[in-house]
């Protein structure tokens, strides 16, 4: 396997007395697209929140590019290159599409040329955003909002992109497009950790996957291993 980008060992996160995650061991290599499968409430978002620094782990270790990052504040992690695209398309609804993208490039705000280049790149990936660049983000459709959320995350030039359920609440056709674009982003060299419930779509584009249930990793393997695993087919693919 290629050199490790993200390494999580023995991670434990508690919400008060409730243990949300226990003994999580995961890793993501350079350039990989790794999927994290699990039902609602299994702990996917909590893992993401721990990686991006929003939740402090009560135990365990998160290392990014061989540097311990657990306990570092979220805004500093963005500077290091860990960018989270949060669940539920959290945008700045009253700002325009363009302004949302500019906010995404906040950490590179001093480098105007770079920002301009990134904006062009996002417009290439999602031409609809260029078309609607002056519209308020809140006025976009669900699919467009998700594109904008991903576009905004790309503006920060992620070394590791955390995508939290990008297919949530989208029409099947849009979901297909979305996954194609995610694959394209990955092929352009961005390492991606993807949380999904839509296992069949996610496994098609992912290199490897982890399955999380009740705050623990229960199965891990390559995409084809997971795809052919009887129990996973039953639980997450439904065929």
């Amino acid at each position: 396997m290629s050199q490790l980008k993200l390494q999580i060992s023995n991670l434990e996160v508690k919400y008060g007395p409730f243990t949300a995650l226990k003994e999580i061991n995961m890793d993501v290599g350079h350039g990989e697209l790794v999927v994290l499968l699990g039902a609602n409430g299994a702990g996917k978002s909590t893992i993401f929140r721990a990686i991006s620094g929003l939740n402090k782990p009560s135990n365990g270790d998160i290392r990014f590019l061989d540097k311990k990052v657990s306990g570092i504040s979220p805004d500093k992690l963005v500077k290091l290159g860990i960018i989270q695209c949060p669940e539920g398309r959290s945008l700045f609804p009253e700002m325009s599409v363009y302004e949302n993208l500019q906010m995404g490039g906040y950490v590179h705000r001093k480098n105007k040329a770079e920002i301009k280049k990134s904006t062009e790149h996002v417009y290439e990936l999602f031409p609809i955003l260029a078309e609607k660049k002056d519209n308020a983000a809140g006025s976009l459709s669900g699919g467009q909002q998700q594109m904008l959320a991903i576009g905004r995350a790309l503006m920060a030039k992620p070394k590791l992109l955390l995508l939290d359920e990008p297919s949530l609440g989208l029409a099947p056709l849009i979901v297909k497009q979305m996954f194609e674009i995610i694959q394209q982003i990955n092929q352009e060299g961005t390492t991606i950790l993807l949380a999904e419930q839509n296992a069949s779509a996610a496994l098609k584009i992912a290199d490897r996957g982890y399955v999380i249930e009740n705050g623990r990793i229960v199965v891990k393997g390559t995409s084809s291993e997971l795809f052919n695993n009887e129990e996973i087919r039953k639980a997450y693919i439904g065929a």
Partner: protein
Amino acid sequence: MAKLLSKRNGLIFVLVVALIMPFIVPNDYILHVLALVCIWSISVYGINIFTGYTGNLSLAHIGFFAIGAYTLGLLTVKAGWNFWLAFLAAGVLSIILGFLVGLISLRTNGHFFAIYTMCVGYIIYLIIDKWDSLTGGVRGLIGIPGPASIGPITFESLTSQYYLLLFFLILTIFITKRIVHSLLGRTFIAIRNSEELAQTIGISTKKNQLLAFVISCFFAAIAGALYASFVRFIGPEIGGIFLGFEMLIYLVIGGLGTLSGPIIGTLLIVFLTQSLQFMQEYKMLLFGPILLIIVIFYPNGIVGAIEGIKRKTRQKRKKSGPNKGYSGIEEVS
């Protein structure tokens, strides 16, 4: 016609009206009230930068208004400083104290932040009220000089003072506009939207909140200093929580997080208060329900309500024919 009513022309019209006010008002009393409106507005713009744009409620604001007023008053009356030097000192002191207070109080969040800053405001009030030997306590501070002349320009007449205050108000609005329409302004709005989301795009929320807090304290202190030099007498009640809430009401009614809200709210409520003077304390019977109605039905105040109506008509027009989509941040216009 539409061009004639454009935003730019509207602004010029308002500016011209403000400039010729001294010549069209029937008596000095109204000009006096207008001058006070300028002062309150500057302070309300300060609240707006912090509470309106970053979304945290600070109740220490009035304390900084009092700090500005007393710094100017004490330095001119007791230390015999030059007026403008004392004015500058009031601004500088508010920045230093605002930084220190913000540094500690911003460790709390939400309601706790509001309660904490209310305590800070009350402590400032208590210090002014009880430190008799310095501040004169309840007797207050009298004989504060008016603004010193700058070269050939003097500020002895009411008209000239009005122009001076108007100048500072316009400067305040200009600075606010520059901040709000910059990346810094959008950073503040991002924090108001969601602190967590702001963090996940790399914004250091505490640093930016602190900056907004300090700017807000600075505006408060400038307004306080201008107040002291205009009224020439200050007492501890200018640091009192009632005045603080009154300014907050101006802002809420005008429109939190809007550019024109502070001045519209202040102008409206101050003149309403003046014309309801005969009702004395009972005027609150009128204000209470008005405030409630606005908070419930128009949480973005008068300006927010007008913006909402504009947006709706524009959308209707958009449906009936091709039209340019709305751009930019709606709320800050």
